[in-house]
């Protein structure tokens, strides 16, 4: 079973607890600006969407890195940035189609979600289960179940 961050925007309230947990885990301070996960507020639609690196199987950031500073953790599939190798060239930030790897001016290195070594702080901090750390192969299960129930109701009526 491979675990991943499974995000359900419908449950997000934009409370920023995930951002603070991420910032504290990685930078030992409270400030959402230091977070690797971000909640986007689509005000006019009434939707709040948490977004972070989805750990691509074939990762553009990794392919683009000229010094092989990004590696794959074989057990979890997580793409890791090695600070001792990263030269801060930022090519990965251009290559990533999703914008989830970013340059940190304070350190001169790039930062991205590393799933906190298998115990993601954001998922633990989320009060509504909008972010869970669960089996990626079953990430559609809840949606399927909801639609199955609806289909069944339709069939019965």
């Amino acid at each position: 079973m491979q675990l991943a961050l499974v995000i359900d925007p419908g449950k997000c309230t934009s409370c920023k607890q995930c951002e603070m947990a991420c910032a504290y885990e990685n930078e030992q301070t409270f400030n959402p600006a230091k977070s690797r996960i971000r909640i986007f507020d689509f005000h006019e639609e009434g939707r709040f969407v948490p977004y972070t690196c989805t750990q691509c199987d074939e990762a553009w950031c990794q392919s683009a890195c000229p010094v092989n500073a990004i590696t794959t953790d074989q057990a979890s599939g997580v793409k890791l940035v090695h600070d001792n190798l990263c030269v801060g060239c930022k090519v990965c930030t251009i290559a990533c189609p999703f914008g989830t790897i970013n340059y940190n001016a304070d350190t001169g290195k790039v930062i991205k979600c590393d799933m906190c070594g298998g115990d993601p702080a954001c998922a633990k901090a989320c009060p509504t289960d909008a972010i869970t750390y669960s089996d990626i192969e079953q990430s559609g299960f809840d949606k399927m179940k909801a639609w199955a129930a609806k289909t069944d109701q339709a069939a019965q009526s």
Partner: protein
Amino acid sequence: MAWTKKLLRINLTAGEITTEPLNMEWAQEYLGQRGLATKYFTEETDPNVDPLSPENKLIFATGPLTGTCASTGGRYSVITKGPLTGAIACSNSGGYFGPELKFSGYDMVILEGKSPTPVYLSIFNDKIQLRDASHLWGKTVWETDGIIKAEVQDPLAHVATIGVSGEKGVLYSCIVNNMHRAAGRSGVGAVMGSKNLKAIVARGSNGVQVRDPQGFFAATDAGKKVLAENAVTGEGLPAFGTQVLMNVINESGAMPTRNCRDTVFEGAHDISAEAMAEPRRSDGKANLSTNQGCFGCTIACGRVSTIDPTHFTVQGEDKERYKHASGGLEYEAAWALGSATGVNDLDALTYAQFLCNEHGLDPISLGSTIAAAMDLYEEGVIGDNITGGINLNFGNAEALVKVVELVGTAEGFGAELGMGSKRLCEKYGRPELSMTCKGQEFPAYDPRGIQGMGLTYATSNRGGCHLRSYTVSSEILGIPEKTDPLATEGKAGLVKAFQDATAAVDSAGICVFTTFAWTLDDIAPQIDTACEGGWTPEKLMEVGERVWNMERRYNMAAGILGDQDTLPERVMKEASKAGPAKGLVSGLDKMLPEYYELRGWSTDGTPTGETLSRLGL
């Protein structure tokens, strides 16, 4: 150490910007936010200052827990002398602005004087500028928010601004941050406008540190668990928002209706949380789109709503901006714009709420002032010549939205309504029709049906207000224990205890709604692990009592004495006509002497020397 230990002082007259260390001795006595900023304010500002003159000051203040992961740790307050009341004003807001101010590196900003031309203040860490705002003068809150964000080119910046109502001195105009969160009451927006200050934009890259990180995570996690497991904060507020109260208060016979002519509103269900969740015929959607939390909030009582696209309020091309989701109705707003005016049209109220956000108006004072105007109109005191041809009868939804539009831009009859209910009713020779205490409109709990709220309103340091001691918790919801809402016995002690505890909570950087679930035993460990100073529940109660007496003393020096600890004649003399409170008036006279005694004040409501010295004042 959750304080940044630094404050920002801006002299708008001279355009001078300075920083200074936070007075840490005072921080130990007044904690932060409401308490600490009021200490600075009362030390620096003459109690007899004209609230709208350059000599008045305006303070934006955060608390030690603002910007941390403590649940609801995102609050800030605005402290000034209020133009509606002439009393100390302190308005509290959520959203995401307060933490950003703190991330910039400041616990508070003290604004002095008056800028010669319109400006806005930009705070990006230690890069602080007063920038020209002449192009923003005359713009709405929503327009200003968008323009400033585009100018500073930073998607993480947060804006607090006034609308045109604040520029033109509407006496209950607010300061709105994040489009629909507001430092709402007592006209703090008018003070900002009088200083030619349109907005503050903040963005910080400094973090907040806490004294004992491990202990802090343990304490805040425990706090979040308590909130999640509590029926009000874990279920009622997230699902229904504060609007969960609409049917509850109505059934208690404590719904101030049609300017307090009645205490039960027959249309309450139509404008309730339950109605907001009903799918409508036109598009199959409910009024409520989703709930939203402010910064750090694990309760998430905020409402995000849409208006029925077929409703009369959103017809026409110039109404495009109201056709999307936006900040929806809270209970106080639904009551003020609805029950108080007798209007049961949910979409009209939602539209009026959007207008309050867009123009920066306090819906409580606005709705109550409109209700008073409707009373004057129905009594034949004012006619169509005064209202500009608007049929201002109770229950008229079209008239309601028309006058809200007019107050938003302070035009025509709207400018008169912008004075608030007290001045309006005095102008037309019927002061008894104003439902105010110390000049501020009281909110959504009739003192005849919830007796403790009568004493709450009468003794509130910022004028009629529910957020200084929300005894509804005890009298209706049974938190922390149930008391009889129709009885006066024991209410003096209840009000004092709520006032002191609330003053401490308002000084910490967290939301008073946590106290539906939290006691000071839950709160103290969160402050103590964040801050130096050995913060116990007892120390917090002492801070709260000190803050309360400090505010009281400032008001008395401003000429607001014990004789103003009173309620409108209507709720003192005209008995409730229906519901559980039928036949009752407010028993304020029975509660007030006991309250003074418990406070250690003289029989005329003056804090005694002994009380003041006990509190170190």
